[in-house]
C-alpha cells in the first residue's frame, strides 16, 4: 500500500490465481513494465511464470519480502543462479 505513495503502480491481489492473472497481464500484454516486485508469499504459485522471464532482459521480476517478513526465497534465487553458473554452490551456505 505504501508503495503507491512513492509513485509506483500497485496491483492488489487476493488469491494466487488473481496474482497469476495480474502478472500475465503485466508481462504479456504490455512492455511498459521493466521491474515487477512480487511479494515472496505469492511467488511459489507463480514460479513458472517467473522462470519464463529469467533469461529475458525485461521485465526484471524481483521478489520482496511480504508483511510476514522474509521467507528466504530471494536468497534462494541467488543461490540458484550461482549454482547454474558455477555448477555447484560455492557460497558456502
Amino acid at each position, binding site marked *: *500500500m*505504501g*508503495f*503507491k*505513495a*512513492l*509513485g*509506483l503502480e500497485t496491483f492488489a491481489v487476493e488469491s494466487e490465481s488473481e496474482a497469476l492473472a495480474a502478472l500475465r497481464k503485466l508481462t504479456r500484454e504490455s512492455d511498459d513494465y*521493466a*521491474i515487477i*516486485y512480487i511479494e515472496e508469499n505469492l511467488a511459489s504459485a507463480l514460479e513458472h511464470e517467473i522462470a519464463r522471464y*529469467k*533469461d529475458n*532482459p*525485461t521485465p*526484471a521480476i*524481483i521478489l*520482496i*519480502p*511480504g*508483511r510476514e*517478513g*522474509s521467507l528466504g526465497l*530471494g*536468497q534462494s*534465487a*541467488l543461490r540458484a*543462479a*550461482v549454482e*547454474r*553458473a*558455477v*555448477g555447484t554452490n560455492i*557460497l558456502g551456505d
Partner: protein
Amino acid sequence: MASTTITPTRMVLNQLKGRLKTARRGHKLLKDKRDELMRQFMDVVKQNKVLRIRVEEGLTQAFAAMQVASSIMSPEMLEQALLYPRQSVELGMDFKNIMSVNVPLYHFTTKNNDPSEIYPYGFAQTSGELDDALDKLARVFEDMLELAQVEKTMQLLAEEIEKTRRRVNALEYVMIPELEGNIKYISMKLEENENATKVRLLKVKEMVLQDAHHYKQ
C-alpha cells in the same frame, strides 16, 4: 567413431587440420570469456547478497512501521490518505554490455523533485507514524531499484556463463578429441597407402628387370 565415415584423402586431412586449429582457437577464446564472465559474476553476486539483505531488512522495518501506523489510524483513514499518490516514478532503462551480455541499467526520475511529495495527504488528519513508515519505504526503494538491476544482471550473466561453459566443454571434450582422432586416422591411412605403393613399385621393378635382362636372383 566418426572416423569410419571420413574419406582418407589429403584434402580432407588439410580441411580437418584447419578445423582443429579453429576449434583450438575458439576453445581458448571461449575459455577466456568464461573466466572473465565468472569474475564479473562473482562481483555481482556479492553485491546482490549485500543488497538483498539490506532491502529485506529495510522492507521489514518499513512494513512494521506501516503496521504501527495502521494500528493508530482507522483503516478507512489510512486508505484515504494513500488513495491518490502525488508522486509518480518514471523508470528509464538503458543497456550495458558486459562481455556481449546486455544487462539493464535503470534510472528513475520522479515527477516531483520535492522529497516531501511522497506524502500524498494533509498532515492534519494522519499520524506521524504514517510519515515515518513512508519515509522508510522511500529510502528502501532506492536500494530496491538497485537490487532489481543487480539481480537481473546476475540472472543474465548466469545464463551466459552456463552457455559458454557448455560450449567450452563441448569443444574440449568432444570436438577437439574427435578432430584429433580423425586426423590421426587419415595420416595413418595415408602412410599405409604410401607403403603399399612403395612395395608395389619394388615388385614391378623386379618384374621389369627380369623381363629385360632375364635377370634371376
